[in-house]
């Protein structure tokens, strides 16, 4: 079966595509329009990388996991799990403008400065207000890409192009579960003779994710509530609040009922069963402790999944890049319940 046809009919037309970009940047056949993956025309390849890398195409999850992670670390709810931490960037300048504690930026900055990576693929918001993939080549670049857009950008198209260029030999990838999984599918080199320099992927940082929103829908929502003030930051407090908080550039906080946001959730995300981005060296999300949301929103929960991830966290501790807070009792169980909740919802 032709790969573009398989991917289009089995993923795109079935509305299962998250728009991660794993199929893009490899050939002229695929692209993105307003967050939607588009097949411009068919190619006649039956074993395309687009099809092999797509996180929504069938694969053997257990085999892929066991190939890259220690099976002894496997947890049914959280995937590969070496430990949970409550952390934030020590540098206030890194925390400022970050989604929560600035942990991802701090870790990537450290990794670049220590030569563990030489570039990082992540998202940033462009001048039009849309999220886009971005290749950060310096600590300054990383600082420009802080925060979350709540939309899935085709970040992995940027990764594919960077890998093809072969300029950087140690690239870090940050992304939600779909992107992290696709990155490990790349690392598995399903086509060794056309692996697109997958060995240049040096580190994967996964991001906790509940869902991504429709690009146009969220823009309309932001326009409705923030208007000319523009959006500086968005956040979702714990589920009991049932709101999306929009902070305008003028500093005004607006609470939007999640009932108005939920219809904007991409259909593909409703079928995702991985909240904590299980395929990653380290996964990072918002903090949860007994101190309440006002304190927690400046912290991150961090899951270490691999030896590489553990080494990076230890280095961050040694160098004083991160601050650590004692985990509240029951934190792991709480995270497990949240992860299981998403999985059960997706499997319904």
């Amino acid at each position, binding site marked *: *079966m*032709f790969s573009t*046809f*398989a991917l*289009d*009919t*089995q993923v795109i*037309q079935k509305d299962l595509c998250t728009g991660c970009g794993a199929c893009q940047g490899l050939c002229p056949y695929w692209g993105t329009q307003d967050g939607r993956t588009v097949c411009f025309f*068919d190619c*006649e390849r039956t074993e395309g990388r687009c099809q092999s890398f797509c996180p929504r195409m069938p694969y053997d999850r257990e085999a892929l996991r066991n190939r890259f992670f220690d099976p002894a670390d496997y947890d049914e709810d959280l995937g590969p799990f070496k430990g949970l931490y409550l952390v934030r960037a020590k540098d206030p300048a890194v925390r400022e403008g970050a989604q929560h504690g600035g942990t991802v930026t701090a870790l990537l900055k450290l990794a670049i400065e220590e030569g563990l990576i030489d570039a990082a693929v992540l998202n940033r918001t462009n001048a039009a207000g849309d999220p886009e993939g971005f290749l950060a080549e310096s600590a300054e670049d990383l600082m420009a890409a802080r925060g979350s857009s709540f939309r899935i950008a085709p970040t992995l198209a940027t990764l594919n192009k960077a890998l093809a260029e072969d300029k950087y030999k140690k690239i870090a990838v940050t992304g939600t579960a779909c992107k992290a999984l696709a990155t490990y599918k790349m690392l598995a080199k399903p086509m060794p003779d056309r692996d697109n320099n997958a060995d240049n992927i040096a580190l994967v940082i996964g991001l906790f994710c509940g869902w991504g929103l429709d690009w146009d829908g969220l823009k309309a929502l932001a326009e409705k509530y923030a208007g000319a003030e523009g959006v500086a930051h968005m956040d979702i407090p714990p589920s009991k609040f049932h709101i999306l908080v929009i902070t305008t550039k003028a500093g005004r906080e607006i609470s939007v009922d999640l009932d108005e946001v939920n219809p904007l959730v991409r259909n593909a995300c409703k079928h995702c069963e991985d909240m904590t981005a299980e395929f990653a060296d380290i996964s990072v999300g918002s903090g949860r402790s007994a101190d309440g949301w006002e304190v927690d929103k400046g912290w991150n929960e961090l899951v270490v999944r691999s030896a590489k991830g553990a080494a990076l966290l230890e280095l961050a501790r040694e160098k004083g890049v991160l601050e650590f807070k004692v985990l509240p009792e029951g934190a792991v169980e709480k995270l497990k319940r949240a992860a299981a909740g998403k999985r059960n919802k997706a499997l319904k």
Partner: protein
Amino acid sequence: MKDTIRVIIRHPRKSEVLVTELPLTTKVNQLQQIVVDAGYARPYVMGFKFIISKHLLTDGAALANYVPEGAEEVVIDIFDIPETTI
């Protein structure tokens, strides 16, 4: 795995369909002759184009290139152009 598949061919301006069993190796550019031989449509000098799931089929490709493994049936639409003869 079966090496043939049940094919349902639809014409843009006909309510009835043509149902036939074809080898998966059947080339797209053989479909017009099959349609004509079955009396379902008259020959079209430029050659018909065919569509599966919104994809215009490549003339030299085989049906197997557009059919998932294990599929028992496929619907093929004749591309609707004004010159299509009935």
